[in-house]
């Protein structure tokens, strides 16, 4: 799995850091920007210190779209913990994001 651009949020080295979230975007569109800020907010409130967000810009690495079966933009993929889950949209519906990430049980 290639990483186009990764960005660590929070003070990463905690023993609880087992969340890897990958956000697929295609250029800096308003939806992408919104998705990223929504994601950051959610992670900060629920997963502080236990997560890593990778941002993959398909406009630069289009081959990753096929590889990871991305069709909608933006798409958030929960790489870790298994199983992989996909959440599409700008993540504005917080309840659904939490549901999609299955954060309730993890926290």
């Amino acid at each position, binding site marked *: 799995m290639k990483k186009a651009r990764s960005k660590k949020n929070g003070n990463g080295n905690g023993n609880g850091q087992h969340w890897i979230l990958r956000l697929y975007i295609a250029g800096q569109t308003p939806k992408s920007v919104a*998705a990223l800020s929504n994601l950051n907010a959610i992670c900060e409130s629920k997963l502080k210190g236990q997560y890593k967000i990778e941002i993959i810009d398909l406009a630069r690495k289009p081959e990753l779209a096929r590889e990871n079966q991305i069709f909608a933009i933006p798409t958030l993929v929960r790489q870790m913990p298994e199983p992989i889950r996909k959440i599409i949209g*700008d993540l504005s519906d917080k309840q659904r994001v939490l549901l999609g990430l299955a954060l309730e049980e993890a926290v």
Partner: protein
Amino acid sequence: MAKNSNGNSRTLTGIRKVPTGVKGLDEITGGGLPQGRPTLVCGSAGSGKTMLAMEFLVRGAVQYGEPGVFMAFEETAEELSQNVASLGFDLPTLTRKKKMYLDYVHIDPSEIQETGDYDLEGIFVRLKLAVDSVGAKRVVLDTLEALFSGLKNQAVLRAEIRRLFRWLKDHGLTAVITAERGEGTLSRYGLEEYVSDCVILLDNRVREQVATRRMRIVKYRGTAHGANEYPFLIDDTGFSVLPLSSLGLQHQASTQRIGTGIAGLDEMLAGKGLYRGSTVLVSGMAGSGKTSIAAHFADATCSAGQKCLYFALEESFSQVSRNMKSIGLDIKKHVDRGLLNCQAWRPSSYSLEMHLVRLHKSVEEFKPDAVIFDPITNLIVSAADPLEVTSVLTRFIDFLKVKQITALFTSLTSASSAAETSDVGISSLIDTWLLVRDLESNGERNRALYVIKSRGMAHSNQVREFRITGHGVELIPAYLGTHGVLTGTSRMIQEAQEAAEQFRRQHEVERKRFTLETKRKKIDAQIAALRAEYDMAEKEAMSVVEEAEAARKQRGVDRFALAKSRSSNGAEHRKAAPVLEQK
């Protein structure tokens, strides 16, 4: 690549077309699909949408040098490759050669959570990459509607699909988009409202437990196209659409004659046989020898070095071949020489139109000079509507006529109906119509053949007895008796009677001749006897005359001798002696 240029009168709006390479489809559409525009292919499940789309792409890549992108929403690349491998399409190789790009878009609603506004830029990204990597000119989206079942936000979907079609057009990509057929609509999610250029509907109808695939061009903006429903076939060589009704009555009529293989029959057909390219119907009841006539025709065609295509819908070829051997016809040798091609199948395996597609295809492949169809009635059984039969047969016969292929159909008539009515109104399509009839009398069934009609020739109006012998079919001039035509035993009795009569007459003549001869001999003998008697009498008379003469002479000599002796002269006496010796 496009067949029609902008200036073509048939394409007023200047639509350029790209050939699909699909057999028959390019003829219906007048050149192919609209270039640089999306075409919607709708149809119910299993109607062949994916196959059509795939063939469009593969033929484009292989035959027309137009690489293509196949974006699948339902099947993985591996599944697709396997599915079309049976058609001889080698997708992995095409992909390797960069003639094709396969992309499977996996959408599983159970693992997707929608959390707000999104778009389908991911699909655009993938499509762009695919198109750029092979330089694609053709694109297939199969089945785009899978998006609708995977995603909930219809407003986003519709907007994005509209954007996708725009994008395809902007990039000049000729696209085929498949869609599931909906209730009362062409596609379940109304995709036809985005695709306004060309819509093709595929249909798979089942009637009498037999399925028929049909295709219809619902709409093709800016161009003339065939508006009918066309049957099509998917087999090991791909798609075949049957553009039959494009044919008319413009075919050339040949004056060349060809033999039927039965000398007596040729004789009945003005002594020369059939016209090349004519259509012959042999009607008759079960067991009347139709197949034998057909086999003779096949044998004659192949013996003349021409190719014959034999469709057997009743028996397997080996059975036909064996049976014909029993009447002294070896048709298998023609198969070995490659002149005879026999195809046997059960009529119930396809619907009428599918049969026709198959026939059409076989004829195109084998390119025969003559086609035999034994029997055509079995096809008719597989169709419920007699009108349909007529229409389909008309198209098939027209197709053969245009190709100058002589066709011989056999038709089984039922005992209860008249032969003339049972042939479902196809008689008007037939040029030469032979009827083999069973004549039942004196406790036996015999066959008689006559020519009901034969266009363009002075055919015989006689009924001939039709006999199947160990050395083929024979036609014998029938005997006309007081009760009509005499055949079989009656004819043989008649023949025997005539022979006896002949013998009797012969005998009589002989006897008369003998009597006469005897009489002549008798008279001759009598004449001979009389002559002998006469000769005897003559001889007798002659001897009497001679005797009398001799006596007279003797008397003279004696008198002389007497006189001599009276004169007592010895010398005189010696002189007289030779006279005596002369006697």
